[in-house]
């Protein structure tokens, strides 16, 4: 009898020891899992500033109204009263009531989202007559300068299943419904740094899930604030100057590669995308011939036309196949293998040397030079000037342009390289393609003689991004000077192609116009007189281009402008470029303005934490 009892008591003690001491850790964990619910606190997204410290992307406080059924006797009446203060339809009220009844009485149900401060103020004032109603604060992205930076900053949007499938990102934040992530532009490319780290809120719940108390509240780390190199004043000016055209302009600092403007027209309002764009708006943007959604500065690739002639000239000088004095006769055309290659001026330019050839943009001269240099050397020189190379900018779908080689044609066109292809390349036509960004880089390199690389993000918080490659180019500085004098003439010689678009101040602009064909002009058409550009349908008109830099002495900025199907570069692109350049020069020293770093934002967040 006693033995039996002792055995039982022994068993009890053994079990107590086993559960409470040996496996204590495991059971402790299980108990904690039982009671603690962790909810994620989305961090504030990093702010985006322009060069002088103007806010370009910020987080607007938006309010959500939630209702807890158990705190009121008559939810219907409360909702009816609420409907007098905020927009709330009867059907919505019915839905909310249904949802509340299907859940436990203490679960908050969202009544309205995206409310403005005025609504919340009204609700707060009437709080005593609205039992169970609580406003909750959330953050929504906003782009105060809207369209000006649509192509650079891009936009955020609610995370989609497609996004989740695309990115290999295990951040639990992405699982928050309608969490905003960067979808385009810098917002997308700098997503990881802008997003920040999730905060966690630990709450203790009881067995049916009622919140008992808050155990811990880590507000999370806001994303890094970001400063662009772009100057808003200039960007806005460029965007407005190009209004009505399908056009792109890039302004760059020739000394360090900072991009001061990267404008693509027409543009769009990125704010429309934040909470999902409507079908009608999307259709309007997508079906527009002027492609407002495309960032033409980096995504567009165009035949550079005459703006490419500096490359050929530099290649010829470098190879020594010509010199500054040599003159080439231009009778208006050149016969190559029995085919006539025309100069843009039907009567020809007569005898032209390199400087004059650039000044008048004589095609025959460059046909001749391209044949002497050969396509491989042209491409080599173009690459050294930044053409045909994909530049590293935090922007989507950057086009690498195209600088053809014989091998390239074999591989892609399954055809041999013809001598005529070289002649066409000599005037920036044929297979040659370049983006406005590349043309601006080319001009900047010609102007500065150093191998600058583009840069569009100045700093994250207080960490400056690296300025890449300011090593000198491998070209003979004397050769570069010859090219520069040619470019000077284009804008400042009374017979230069861009003379009418010169800068009249002491600071001179040096440039080069370009008019690139997008159609083939047949023999018969040429005989009957080439159809005037204005008479062609828009899509078949020539592209107008201009590249340049200023001031001629001590260059600071390079610019490239392309007006899609705009006609002659001298008439369409050069005036735009001149105006933008004038604006850029008027900005003065244009040094960087201060921005808040995120430690400061964290403080702000704490301060405005709702009580």
């Amino acid at each position, binding site marked *: 009898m006693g033995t039996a009892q002792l055995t039982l008591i022994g068993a*009890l003690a053994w079990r*107590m020891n086993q559960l*409470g*001491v040996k496996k204590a850790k*495991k*059971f402790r964990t299980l108990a904690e899992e039982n009671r603690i619910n962790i909810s994620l606190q989305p961090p504030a997204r990093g702010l985006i500033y322009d060069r002088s410290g103007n806010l370009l992307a910020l987080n607007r406080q938006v309010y959500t109204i939630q209702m807890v059924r158990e705190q009121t006797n008559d939810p219907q009446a409360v909702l009816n009263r609420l409907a007098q203060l905020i927009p709330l339809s009867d059907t919505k009220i019915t839905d909310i009531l249904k949802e509340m009844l299907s859940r436990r009485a203490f679960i908050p149900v969202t009544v309205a989202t995206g409310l403005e401060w005025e609504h919340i103020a009204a609700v707060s004032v009437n709080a005593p007559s609205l039992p169970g109603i609580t406003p909750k604060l959330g953050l929504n992205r906003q782009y105060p300068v809207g369209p000006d930076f649509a192509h650079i900053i891009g936009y955020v949007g609610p995370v989609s299943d497609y996004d989740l499938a695309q990115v290999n990102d295990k951040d639990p934040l992405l699982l928050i419904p309608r969490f905003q992530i960067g979808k385009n532009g810098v917002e997308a490319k700098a997503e990881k740094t802008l997003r920040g780290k999730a905060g966690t809120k630990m709450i203790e719940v009881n067995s049916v899930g009622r919140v008992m108390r808050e155990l811990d509240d880590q507000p999370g780390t806001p994303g890094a604030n970001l400063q662009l190199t772009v100057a808003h004043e200039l960007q806005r000016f460029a965007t407005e100057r190009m209004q009505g055209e399908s056009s792109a302009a890039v302004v760059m600092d020739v000394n360090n590669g900072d991009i001061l403007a990267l404008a693509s027209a027409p543009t769009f309002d990125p704010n429309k995308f934040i909470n999902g764009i409507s079908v009608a708006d999307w259709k309007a943007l997508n079906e527009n011939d002027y492609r407002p959604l495309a960032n033409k500065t980096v995504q567009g690739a165009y035949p550079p036309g005459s703006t490419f002639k500096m490359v050929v000239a530099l290649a010829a000088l470098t190879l020594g196949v010509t010199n500054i004095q040599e003159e080439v006769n231009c009778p208006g055309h050149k016969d190559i293998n029995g085919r006539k290659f025309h100069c843009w001026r039907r009567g020809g330019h007569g005898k032209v040397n390199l400087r004059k050839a650039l000044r008048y943009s004589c095609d025959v001269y460059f046909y001749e030079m391209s044949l002497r240099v050969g396509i491989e050397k042209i491409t080599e020189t173009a690459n050294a000037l930044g053409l045909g190379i994909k530049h590293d900018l935090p922007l989507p779908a950057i086009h690498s342009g195209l600088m053809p080689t014989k091998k390239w044609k074999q591989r892609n066109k399954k055809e041999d390289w013809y001598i005529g292809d070289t002649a066409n390349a000599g005037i920036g036509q044929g297979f040659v393609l370049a983006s406005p960004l590349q043309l601006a880089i080319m001009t900047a390199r010609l102007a500065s003689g150093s191998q600058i690389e583009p840069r569009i993000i100045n700093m994250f918080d207080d960490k400056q991004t690296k300025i890449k490659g300011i090593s000198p180019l491998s070209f003979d500085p004397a050769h570069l000077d010859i090219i520069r004098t040619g470019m000077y003439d284009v804008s400042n010689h009374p017979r230069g192609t861009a003379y009418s678009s010169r800068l009249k101040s002491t600071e001179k602009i040096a440039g080069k116009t370009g008019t690139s064909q997008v159609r083939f002009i047949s023999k018969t058409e040429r005989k009957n007189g080439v159809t005037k550009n204005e008479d062609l349908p828009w899509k078949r008109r020539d592209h107008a281009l201009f590249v340049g830099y200023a001031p001629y002495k001590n260059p600071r900025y390079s610019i490239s402008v392309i007006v899609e199907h705009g006609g002659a570069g001298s008439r369409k692109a050069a005036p735009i470029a001149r105006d933008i350049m004038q604006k850029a020069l008027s900005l003065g020293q244009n040094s960087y303005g201060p921005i808040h770093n995120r430690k400061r934002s964290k403080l702000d967040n704490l301060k405005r934490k709702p009580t």
Partner: protein
Amino acid sequence: MSILINAYQNVPTGFRKVLYFHWPLALLLTAVSCIGFLMLFSVSGGNFDQWAKPQIIRFCIGFVAMIIIGFTPISIWRNISIPTYIISLALLLYVEYFGVTGKGAQRWIDLGFIKLQPSELMKIALVMVIALYYDWLDSEKISKPLWLFPPLLLTALPMALILNQPDLGTAILLGSGAAVVMLLAGVSLWYFLAGVSTIFGLIYFVIWSKGTNFQILKNYQYRRIETFLDPSSDPLGSGYHITQSKIALGSGGFSGRGYMQGTQSRLNFLPEKHTDFIFTTLAEEFGFVGGITLLTLYIMIILCCYLTAMQNHNRFGALLTLGVAATFFFYFCVNMLMVMGLAPIVGVPLPLVSYGGSAMLVLLGAFGLVQSAHIHRTR
């Protein structure tokens, strides 16, 4: 010896009884009850009025009752054993038809101030009547098979009624208590071995009968047995109780999470936290140390009973004391085994600690009988 006797040999009288009262036992009972008050206060989340206060009031009533019962001569209790048994049986029959239904079982008579569970009363009445039987029976007849039938019948009647409620836990406790008294009275061990094997046979039969036309237990009882064998099979349903109970016990660790800091009970993860599962809260908040302390107190109560029974030459008093001790032992043993996942959940409260009026009063009354046997023992 006759059924009724009236003997006052060598016993203290008047206020001298106070000196002969078994004070250590009373102290131990108070200590265990105090642990109960503390835990009830804790599981109610600091609400004194909810459970702790009524429990303290009942303890006080019960304690006074214990003193009164203890001062009453044991011979009187011996003499009213049979009426007590008959009344208890009648009450059991009454609840069969008019009882208050709670949690799928007919158990209570609502007397207004207390919900009386006749099955609790029967535990003591049965021990009393069997002790009386063996006190009366000649010692040479004890192991004769024929003389086994009266006590078996006395046990089987209430057991059947309680099983029918259905309250398996109480029925088992009742049977075990009676069996221990019979064993201690001198019934041959072989009968018990036979009995135990029969019971195991029965258990097999009960399990086997599931799903047939003559299924013996209710479905929920089968589920409890199944989940006892494998709690993880149904973590949100029947297994929930035992899983949460083990989590609470285990999370206490060696020294516990601190008084009123047990999350499992405070946040309602524990079922029946103030009654059957109160031990888990104790273990959660006071850990292994707390659990062992309570167990030690229980063992000391049992030991007190054994010691006084051994000194007692009054056969009825000794048997009664041992019977009460055994019932008490089974009480806490089954409860602890159950909450620690070593026995199926059969609904047995932790004696003196779990919230419950009948159990508290009946237990203190029973220890009053032990006191009476102690004071009026034949020296």
